[in-house]
């Protein structure tokens, strides 16, 4: 066996350096109470830094009040590989559910966005780093079907470190699974608006998230297949300052726009109006 480049490419990109309080702004070090950040859509009122946003808060910020109807809420991961690293997968799952109050790293359901009916598929980074296992793949796939059946667009909001390693190769299979689901949706003529929030990396970036008819990112979001740490470790290259960030992705032509969170709902609603068939 010869020496070879290490190719550990999927990798969870931790959004904030560990140790700091989650409500301390990593950009300007201002500190906030939960309710302050909640009121500001988790955007630092001082410097504009976009904190990672939880899935339910995200839905509340996009869907008109009281319109969201969750779907497939009961789906839960199995442990097809009997996976055990330092702890069993089942234990990690239970802990994640306890901690987040969510059954998985994605919520899907029907909602109305500024008067425009849509299907929503929203990820939550707090649930095992937003990693994509069988349930995330299945939920996204069902969201596509629900959108197709009701003849409405799909709006996805991603936040993911990549694959769910504990599901092994089945995790990789969620890439083609979600890709095929988007293609089935497209065949019915419905669009997908992809909103990439921090971080959208690895398997999620390399599948459905990149297939949006329009791709919008939040400011400062890391959007990379391989995160900066692994790239640096592997290639010893000097990385550009904005390596993998939304701003770089825009410059390189990968995304359509960077939209600050307070303007996101109006922006998405405008797109939904433009894509609506009825022409109203």
């Amino acid at each position, binding site marked *: 066996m010869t020496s070879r480049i290490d190719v550990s490419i999927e990798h969870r990109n931790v959004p904030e350096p560990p140790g700091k309080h989650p409500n301390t702004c990593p950009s300007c070090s201002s500190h906030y109470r939960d309710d302050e950040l909640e009121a500001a859509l988790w955007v630092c009122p001082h410097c504009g830094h976009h904190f990672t946003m939880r899935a339910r808060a995200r839905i509340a910020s996009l869907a008109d009040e009281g319109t969201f109807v969750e779907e497939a809420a009961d789906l839960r991961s199995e442990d097809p590989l009997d996976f055990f690293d330092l702890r069993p997968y089942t234990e990690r799952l239970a802990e994640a559910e306890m901690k987040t109050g969510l059954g998985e790293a994605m919520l899907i359901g029907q909602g109305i966005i500024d008067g425009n009916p849509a299907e929503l598929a929203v990820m939550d980074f707090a649930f095992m780093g937003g990693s994509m296992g*069988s349930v995330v793949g299945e939920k996204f796939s069902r969201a596509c079907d629900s959108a197709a059946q009701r003849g409405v667009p799909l709006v996805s909001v991603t936040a993911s470190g990549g694959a769910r390693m504990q599901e092994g190769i089945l995790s990789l299979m969620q890439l*083609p699974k979600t890709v095929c689901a988007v293609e089935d949706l497209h065949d019915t003529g419905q669009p997908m608006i992809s909103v990439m929030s921090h971080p959208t990396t690895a398997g999620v970036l*390399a599948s459905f998230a990149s297939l949006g008819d329009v791709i919008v990112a939040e400011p400062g979001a890391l959007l990379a297949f391989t995160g900066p740490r692994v790239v640096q470790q592997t290639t010893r290259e000097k990385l550009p300052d904005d390596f993998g960030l939304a701003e770089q992705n825009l410059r390189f032509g990968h995304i359509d726009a960077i939209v600050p969170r307070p303007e996101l709902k109006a922006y998405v609603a405008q797109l939904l109006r433009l894509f609506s068939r009825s022409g109203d």
Partner: protein
Amino acid sequence: MATDHELRLRERLARLRNLNLLGGARVSGELEKLQRQLERIQAAPTDEEIWRSVELARHQDRPYTLDYVNRLFDDWVELHGDRGRADDHALVIGLGRFNGRTVAVVGNQKGRDIKERTDRNFGMAYPEGYRKAMRLMELADLHKFPLVSLIDIPGAYPGVAAEQHGQGGQIARSQALMSRLQVPIVCCVIGEGGSGGAIATAVADRVLMQEHAIYTVISPEGCAAILWRDAAQAKKAAAAFKPDALHCLELGVIDGIVPEPEGGAHTNPDEAARLLGESLRESLEELESIAPEDLKRRRRAKFRSLGVYA
């Protein structure tokens, strides 16, 4: 150089062949039947056997795409370039005659010596490589050539330029294109089927793996580095996420296993090619009678069914 280990492995595979699962490289598309057969297999691969496959899949003498191409396809013409920015040597495309008809071939390609390894970037395509593959897929679709895809990539390339050139998006779009093709697609993992780099060209009607190939969501070293915080625990990681062909078959991720010669494909490339050729032929024959629109529909349905949840 057949070790004790290899002998045991051969024995177990001989049993599998008796189950008519791999006999003459037989491929069955019926998942249920396969799974019933698998239930009869008492012994799952041991951790040692899994690691042995990791080693064989990466063996420096293992046949690569062009080794098979040269043995299997007549009138082979290699095509080049993504018709845009580059000709990525980590991935070869071309046309050849197989079983009496023209097929389009795409395959990851590693290098043999230092110079070729560098030229082929250790088999890791850049985004331009995926574009090159897509160019061939469009050609295949237009001219109704079945597509054969050979997978042998450690993983997508972790480099600055690869990110700047939109690696994630190209991998997604390559899969999307494959899900739209109306020609038969057969894929075989012939070495390492590493993560996004592999799946980019693996959305096939029939997905095969060679007996000692591995198919992984992340390299064992990468997995170990993250979960055990120690890349040296790669063997432990491999045992945990089970990248071997039998487990992939059991999980429904692949449709069949292509036998290798005693001791691994590198011990007898001619025989390895013959066995691979048989499997490809059988798969293509199964698919050729299916209407184009049905092919596409079933392909999508198959991938959309993958996953285990409750």
